[in-house]
């Protein structure tokens, strides 16, 4: 029995009746928790997800509806929460890099050996570029939604994603193992 009310309506009404805020987290809990877990690892994800919704609750009166869904807004808050946990994210990425080294991510494409470079470059990306890229790739937001989440113009999103993609492509374009066939497709920014 899902609520038919929009996120914006629920958030607005929850200012005077806080109990209905639960409809918002029921709706977006899985998406937010998955995003947080992908970026910081499973150990911290529960606490950080709770923190995302606690901050969202405190800021619920200032929510502005632009996409019909509160998810971009929530993932923007998640980015801020993750920013407070940069070390945790780094640890998570280091773990990912080790995992990528010891086992293929996908046996069909043999990209497993590429994993460490990819993750390593991800680690070296400027925070803003990484935040933007991962909102799009792991948070599954559109560019417009990511722009809302980060409160920046959509053009900034485009250029950050393009820049990040170019660097990642360059990283996997110089494989440690030269026998692995690489298609370096990044030909445009």
């Amino acid at each position: 029995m899902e609520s038919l009310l929009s996120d914006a309506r629920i958030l607005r009404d929850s200012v005077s009746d806080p109990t209905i805020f639960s409809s918002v987290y029921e709706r977006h809990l899985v998406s937010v928790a998955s995003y947080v877990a992908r970026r910081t690892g499973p150990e911290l994800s529960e606490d950080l997800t709770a923190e995302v919704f606690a901050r969202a609750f405190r800021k619920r009166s200032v929510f502005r509806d632009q996409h019909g869904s509160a998810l971009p807004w929530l993932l923007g808050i998640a980015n801020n929460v993750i920013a407070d946990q940069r070390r945790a994210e780094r640890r998570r990425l280091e773990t990912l890099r080790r995992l990528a080294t010891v086992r293929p991510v996908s046996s069909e494409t043999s990209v497993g050996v590429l994993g460490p470079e990819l993750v390593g470059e991800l680690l070296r990306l400027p925070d803003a570029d990484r935040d933007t890229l991962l909102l799009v790739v792991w948070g599954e937001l559109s560019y417009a939604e990511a722009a809302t989440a980060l409160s920046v113009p959509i053009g900034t999103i485009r250029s950050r994603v393009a820049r990040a993609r170019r660097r990642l492509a360059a990283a996997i374009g110089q494989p440690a193992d030269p026998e692995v066939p690489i298609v370096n497709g990044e030909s445009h920014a």
Partner: protein
Amino acid sequence: MPDRDEPLDLLRELRDVGITPPPAAELRARVASAITEEIERENQPQRRDFNGGSPHRSRAQRVGGPRRRPGFGRLARGLVPAVGVLVVVLVVVLFVGLRGSGPSTTAPGHGPVAPGRGSVKLVYMAEPTALVPHVTTRALERTVQVMQAQVRALGIRSGRLSLSGANEITVVLPDARNTAQAELELGSTAQLLFYDWEANALTPDGKAAATHLQTQDPDAIEISQGSGPLPAGAPGAGSMALYQAVRLAARQPRWSSSANSRITPQYWMFGAPGSAACATAAREEATVPVAGEHCLLAGPEDSVEELDSGLPAGVRSSQGQVLSVPRGWVVLEAIASSFAHPVPVASPNAQFFVLKDDVALRTADITNPQQGTDPNTGTPDITFGFSSKGKSEFQNLTATIARRGALVSGLGQTLNQHFAIALDNQLISVPYIDYKAYPDGITGDDGADLTSGFTVASAHSLAADLQVGALPLSLKLVCVSAPAGPCHSPARP
């Protein structure tokens, strides 16, 4: 270009490596608890509570607040003598008794919470019901609204309610002196249920009364038409002792339907005639075991574990026989003859009927329950209307009953058929429909009127209980404590 997003595709493949998402229930509980803390934090500096009059509370206030219904009482009361079917003996003392405790002044308190000092926290666990088979956010929110109305009805002005987990509701009351009364009243509302009587009542050998009327089955006729001066639904009019009724119900096949009033099995435990367990149980209740009869040791409960914890002191579960009444069947106590002398369920004098749990109308289908005065007798009564859904269901129910009355009545014999009104596990009335006067049933437009047997206080209490509406979810009190103190299981009534 197919290779254009290769880095992004690789990232997508990477994103779930090594991730085991936290169990949804734990995650939800963790987030809910964080939000509850935020709500409490928000409430503290402003000294605001959920029941304090925000515009968004108006829905609950509408439900529980005073109202005027011009003309309704007159119409409803006019209906009763005309139709002659909705005169209901309502034994409210029993209603209070069925909640498991006596009047609120004698309700048990809780050792850990000193009466009159500081605030108290009650935590309720919400469980699904037939109408709401899953605990959803909306159902929890509606449940909180009903409980808010209940808190207000208790005259507690600054109780705070919040969702405190995936399926928990926390109530913080400002004064522990309210605890006993709140425990009695919160989390349970009057469940008024309407059944087609003959279609659902079973004869002692397990036949639906309606299907055996035409063959003049004596048991079916007795259930339908009563016995001598005893009307349908009265003790002795085809009724059974508790053990026989529960055993009969336990033998029925599970029948699952959205029309059920209960979705879980119901467990009872009986002691054998002449057993030590029955002697112990009788001693505890200061009674004497009835020779040759089974005795009730515990129940009805939702689970065997609860059954065990409800056993009288000195009785072990191995000494009892557990009977489980499957979903789709109910054991209802016969109409009590006097509200002043309710018959306890465990009493050897109590009589019962077994019904298929096919509810035609329920509390949610009635509107505007009001305590008033019957102009004919000057006694307190309760009037109510039907919701638009309730109106059509009432019409359907009474039309079905009238048609069956015409069908089973033969030459020289009138077998008017009935519907039953039950409150919780107690039959309160089994009125008949005069099929000749109302061949198409009775329209629900004019509402109905429950009369007789009330005191002003009891009618007022039941009307208030009906006003707040049924709880969408079933609630179990799991914790009573000081707000920051350790959790104590509530005392058993």
